[in-house]
């Protein structure tokens, strides 16, 4: 690992004065000479540094900014989670478990207890893909500035089965899967002090649009919070994840379903898929297949089929299609 200097930011404003690159920029050919980047829990940043993929000159520790880890919940306004809230904090929050079950489940199944204690929500959304070609210093892949996606014709057993035409990586965050199903919004502040809100769905950037990044963040922008709209008593949610192992592992497939029910009939639904595509994905066909239907075995199966209709698996990840179908079905039946 390279030498770097350390800066403890005391406020969002201070952090935004010090920063000059996103981590994605710092590991690209466009990197400034002496990159200065944010670090919250450091789980992802440190991994990238240990692999020699990014060599920041300065690390701006945003972990100690007061108040940035606050979680507030209000029945009317919904949930607001500061960017520095750790996954452990979110997991332990009783109202989140009660009101946003799928989010609780997603967080509780991410990594391990140790990782969740360090991992921040902001860092989780801004972390880079775990594609092993991207993570390898020996592979100058599409996302690092070359024209080649090694995974498409290479070792792609853990890779994308949808929207994988340009780059077959999958987004690493499984927390985003649940947040997406809940229609979460991201609050971003820039160096001029301006605050912006974007839908989480618009926060992520597909490789076809810009392969050098996975989200819209610019160098002088900091996530300050993630907001989740209030729920009604008719809303139900559930989340499922299947990793290669039961803990300490990434999703091979994960699914969050949020449904507004009227009796046993689903009025409105959103179905989010993680580890399916380079970005966390809201499946419109799946939502349509649910809406207006009684949640039963047949609906669950047809929804799973609808969700996977557009799948374009690669040579080694065809199994992810039946895997997704299975857990989509099970997630829906868990709600019913």
């Amino acid at each position: 690992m390279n030498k770097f200097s350390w800066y403890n930011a005391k406020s969002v404003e201070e952090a935004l004065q010090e920063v000059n690159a996103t981590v994605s920029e710092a590991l690209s050919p466009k990197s400034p000479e002496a990159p200065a980047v944010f670090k919250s829990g450091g789980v992802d940043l440190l991994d990238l540094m240990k692999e020699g993929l990014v060599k920041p000159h300065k690390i701006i520790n945003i972990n100690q900014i007061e108040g940035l880890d606050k979680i507030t919940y209000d029945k009317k306004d919904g949930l607001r989670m500061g960017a520095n809230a750790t996954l452990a904090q979110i997991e332990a929050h009783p109202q989140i478990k009660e009101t946003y079950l799928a989010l609780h489940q997603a967080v509780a199944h991410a990594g391990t207890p140790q990782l969740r204690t360090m991992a921040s929500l902001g860092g989780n959304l801004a972390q880079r893909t775990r594609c092993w070609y991207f993570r390898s210093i020996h592979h100058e892949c599409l996302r690092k500035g070359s024209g080649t996606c090694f995974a498409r014709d290479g070792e792609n057993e853990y890779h994308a089965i949808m929207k994988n035409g340009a780059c077959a990586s999958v987004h690493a965050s499984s927390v985003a899967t649940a947040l997406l199903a809940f229609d979460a919004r991201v609050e971003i502040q820039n160096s001029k002090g301006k605050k912006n809100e974007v839908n989480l769905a618009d926060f992520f950037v597909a490789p076809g649009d810009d392969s050098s990044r996975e989200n819209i963040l610019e160098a002088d922008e900091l996530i300050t919070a993630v907001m989740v709209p209030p729920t009604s008593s008719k809303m139900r949610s559930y989340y499922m994840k299947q990793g290669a192992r039961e803990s300490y592992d990434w999703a091979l497939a994960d699914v969050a379903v949020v449904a507004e029910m009227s009796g046993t009939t689903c009025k409105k639904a959103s179905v989010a898929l993680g580890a399916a595509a380079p970005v966390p994905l809201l499946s419109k066909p799946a939502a349509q297949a649910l809406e207006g239907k009684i949640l039963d075995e047949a609906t669950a199966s047809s929804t799973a089929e609808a969700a996977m209709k557009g799948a374009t698996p690669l040579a080694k990840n065809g199994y992810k299609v039946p895997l997704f179908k299975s857990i989509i079905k099970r997630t829906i039946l868990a709600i019913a």
Partner: protein
Amino acid sequence: MDTKKIKLPHGIPGHNLGQIEREVPADEPPAWPVNDELKHVGKRVKRTDAEAKVTGAAKFTSDIQLPGMLYGRMLRSDYPHAKIRSIDMSAAEKHPGVYAVHIFKNVVGMAQPADDDAAGEYPDIKFAGQPIAGVAALTTEIAEEALDLIKVDYEYLPFVVDLEEAQKPEAPLVFTTNVEQDDAGGGGGGDTGLKTVGNVRGPSTSSFYGGPRGDLEKGFEEADTILEQTYRTQVQTHCSLETHGVVVDWKPDNVTIYASTQNTKNVRDEFAEVFDLPKSQVRVIQEYMGGGFGAKHSLGNFGVMAGYLAKKSGRPIKLMLDRREEHISSGNRPNSIHYLKIGARKDGKLTAIQQRSYGTAGVGLGAGVGRIAQIMYESPNFSTEQYDVFTHAGPGAAWRAPGNVQGCYGLEQAMDELAEKLNLDPIALRDVTDTSEIRKVERHRGAETFKWSRRKLPASDPGLIKKGLGMAQSHWPRIVHIDSTAEVRAFRDGAVEIRSAVQDIGTGTKTVLSQVVAEELGLKPEDITVRIGDTLFPDGPPSGGSIVTGSITPPARNAAYKLKLQLFDQVASKLETDASKLAVDDGQIMSTEDPSKKIAFKEALKEMRTGQISATASRSDDYGGFMVGNAIAYGGLGSVQFAEVSVDTETGFVKVEKIVAVHSCGRPINITQIENQINGGVIQGLGYALYEDRVMDNETGHQMNSNFDQYKMPLSLEIPDIEILIVEDYSGRSSTDAYGIGEPANIATAAAVANAVYNAIGTRIFEIPITPEKVLRALNKV
């Protein structure tokens, strides 16, 4: 030689326990009775170093800090096949904080051309990760900065990393001449003098169990049923918690090497040879070790590099590999394509076994599938052809029961298939074909504990998640290392010590030695100080092949026995009795004729004429002369394992619910430690069966999962209930009659799991690891 006749326990308690009379050297101690009648041997004695390990007081090689010590790092090739035109070290050498640089002139741990002809200035690069040069600097970080400054001019060459691609005629060649390797992986196939055609070397057709036997053709003619099948296993990498590494402290008259090694003696010998030093001037110390599974027998390129850097800089050098280096360069279990053809009569008797295997140990040798098909079942007709295939990938190395683990995966599935074809229960088939008494007992005791009788027809479990039961068994030779010596010393202050260069790789050798010496001297294990893992002491056996306990406990007992006789001589007159009438018990020395004539052991030591007394003993051939070659005693260590799995037929996930592991290791010495080994062996077996797989990228020749995140090992939630049965098996072959357990524990698991998966889903999966991908494919769902 003077001899005497003694009667030793023989057989399996609860089954056929009896006695055997053997003629043994006159100075051997009397026979021990069975474990039930002993005080410390065969009991659950706590590890002598448990506290030190838990509190962190134990210092491993990676903890060693010496005054003035520098850190070494190595530059490795980023390309799998190349010639090196030039190397420019000048910038690295000038980098502030760098004290020494060195370029490899040759690389060890891989196959070498039989005739060393066209060797260029630098060794040719044959795999991505091959070491090229090294630097020593004040910190690891400075050393790594310096590595970035080394300029290597490569001439890139085409390469192949896939086992099947490498066998094609047009495949790029790894070696252009015949090759040999001294320290081959040990799986079989690595015999000397074999020819290489293309990338394929062999076949090896014989082993220490002999060559082909009988007449295959006739055997298959006599068969009522013939099974023909091909099984595939993957490359498994070494994942010891502590990586390979050394600290080399080169003083003018003595080199001290702290090494994370399973073979102190060998590291000393190799270092002395490379640097042309007398062996007596090289001292290797391994006080504690963070695991080793077969790849840590040698000095290694890292040890050679550390030696050069220490010599050049005049400072101690620490060189530990990082996790990536560990995966790509430090040895692995070769993969295999294992073809078996087995003929059987209706009653289950085997008429012929034909075996052919291809495997790649990358740039190394030893990818055979072991000897298990040759030895485990009775078959009058047998032949084997085992081929090594070279690829541009990191070398194989011994890996816990080398070859046998691959071989067992195929053989034991074949037996399961055969049983079904013959309409026999898998246990019944083995009762007919397997002559081993110990395995028979293990099968039946295990079946009862496991409740084997609840096993149903394949795929008969209703529902999406299907349960399945399976079993498999294994064989491992009783290997004895004759060059194993222990010294026992007693001191006037009451201390008793045992000393040997043998190392404890974590299995608990220190504790076992304290138990054996305590038993012989009538003391408690905690009264014995164990000083091992240091070549200043007499040579011990390597920790590999499960040979340590069988090799070092008899000399340990015999040395203690000799020392006891010396002490008896010293106290006899004081106790007014004859030395031959003295015995020890409970910390006392007393007359067997008059128990009032006694003295505490420690008191006796206080009154010694000299400050210390000492006795040394070495391992000799087994009682009964079972020695074959210089290290083999025939007759196997048997084990049988049972697995219960559930298979999710929608997601393809396999969950192992329960393992019953039934094992023997002669006279068990420490029950808790044996269980530790079996737990570890089973867990590694599960990793092999379901998760672990070195993923190579064919386009770039790199391993894609050279870290603990992407190289999947089972973690706590993957580990099932493991129930262990240990069967005592006395054979009266040495003064302790003890054998090892580490390797046998690992052999049968993957086959047992695979057979259980078949029983669950009714479709067999012929290749491990059994991933969801393979399950869903087998179920026609992909």
